[in-house]
């Protein structure tokens, strides 16, 4: 075994952790304030929205949080560019054909058709899904939210033939995809990072950025082998 193997491995640097904190705080605020409007006719919507300072204040909070999230997202793109500039950016988050294989293997493992867990890389297919879901969300929910926030200005940009349905489509996009995002986070993310027996009550990685090497080797064996295993010397 290689003697250079550390006890813990750095998964996320400080900037990434702060980006994540801003992302989830704004996400929660947006979900809470938006929920009241989406389900305005389901009681106790009025009481709920009054916790957020009433409909007017809740609307302002929602807009400010939306802009913060957008800025966080834009910042992330510069963060990636900077990593690329420092030649520190590996394309490990890009979905690959191997992810399909991993998923099939994972389901086979779930069903007892395979003894081994999948040979996951730095990011599993679910983590990649989680990551790109933010892009999908920013595109669908962010764009529609921005349009809905400035209806007069945006009207000028829309072609006349779209006006009969554009606003309804924007509203549906915003509210349905937000629900999808909430449900996704609540189920996949909460299960994997909070409720999973080995992490409960939470995976402290979001604060430390580090993962114990055993856990790392178990959950990301392909990445472990890439860094410390057979042939690791050659790649370096």
């Amino acid at each position, binding site marked *: 075994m290689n003697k250079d193997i550390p006890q813990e491995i750095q998964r996320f640097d400080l900037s990434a952790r702060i980006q994540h904190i801003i992302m989830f705080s704004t996400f929660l605020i947006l979900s809470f304030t938006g929920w009241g409007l989406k389900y305005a006719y389901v009681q106790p919507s009025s009481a709920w929205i009054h916790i957020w300072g009433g409909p007017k204040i809740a609307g302002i909070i929602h807009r400010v949080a939306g802009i913060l999230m957008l800025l966080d997202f834009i910042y992330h793109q510069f963060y990636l560019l900077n990593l690329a500039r420092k030649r520190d950016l590996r394309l490990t988050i890009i979905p690959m054909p191997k992810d399909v294989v991993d998923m099939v293997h994972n389901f086979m493992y779930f069903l007892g058709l395979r003894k081994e867990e999948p040979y996951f890389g730095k990011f599993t297919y679910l983590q990649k899904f989680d990551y790109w879901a933010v892009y999908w969300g920013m595109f669908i929910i962010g764009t529609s939210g921005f349009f809905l926030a400035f209806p007069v200005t945006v009207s000028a940009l829309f072609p006349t033939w779209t006006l009969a*349905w554009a606003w309804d489509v924007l509203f549906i996009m915003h509210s349905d995809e937000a629900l999808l995002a909430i449900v*996704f986070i609540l189920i996949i993310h909460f299960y994997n990072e909070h409720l999973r027996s080995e992490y409960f009550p939470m995976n402290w990685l979001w604060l430390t950025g580090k993962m114990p090497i055993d856990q790392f080797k178990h959950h990301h064996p392909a990445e472990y082998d890439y860094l410390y295993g057979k042939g690791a010397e050659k790649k370096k």
Partner: protein
Amino acid sequence: MRFRLKILFMMLFACLLAATAGAATDAATCLSCHGSMDGAAGVNKDKYEKSVHGSFDCVTCHMAPKGDQHTGLTGAPPDKVVKEFAAALAPKGLKDPLAAAACVGCHPDKVEEYKGSIHGQNVIVKKSTDGPVCTSCHGIPHYIEKRPSMASKVYLFNIVETCGKCHEEKHIIEKYKFSPLVMERYKESFHGRKLKLGHAGAPSCASCHGAHDIKSTKDASSPVGSVENKKKTCSKCHSGAMEKFVAAITHKPLHPVAHFAEIALIILTVGTFMFIITHVLLDIFADIRKRLFRKGGDHHE
């Protein structure tokens, strides 16, 4: 038998009053009987006194109550304006047309607006029983409250329900060729949702369509009857509203494009939901299995 006794007693009482006090016609006199009655003739004293007209004598509006029991209990004879308005409201077949028309005595400007409105025209010119009179929107006349009160039927947050009494009725929608689902489409809009949550800046029906002088949207003089008027109306809140912007609100049913976009997104959402639920459940199952049967067996150090 009891009813007859009651009538008899009332008549005696009325005669007694008429004979003795030279016909006292303050509210207390009327309420001594009507205050304890049930049904349409009953008046709740407390609620009446709390109402905006609570200091009025009953005969201010009920100028000539019918029946012998009311002998001597009349107010000032109705003037020409009230009589005319009462005659105009005749198609509604109201129990006391003079009382229903009495509003004009103090609110002539509102009544004048009403007469020119689509609501007024429907009653007065088309002689329809569908059209509303003052009390249809303002509620039971004895308990009318000032508009900023939650109890007012025309309070900002109650108007939608008040309009909906007729405008949500299927036969009314069909008869007058409104946009089907007109109220529903308003309610699910941002305007409707915000109003529901108590946003004081959100528009109710009357904010855009007007109130006493309400016109059909097909009428060019309606605040939403023409593109020019719509621009003015919308820009009360959305400064710079132009032609393309004011096209946004029609209260029409969902356009097919939006309808299918909604279905597509619902399929996507439900599909993703099913997938992740399955995934998590299988994951939990595998996790439990591992802990039960392969404890400690997966670390190869």
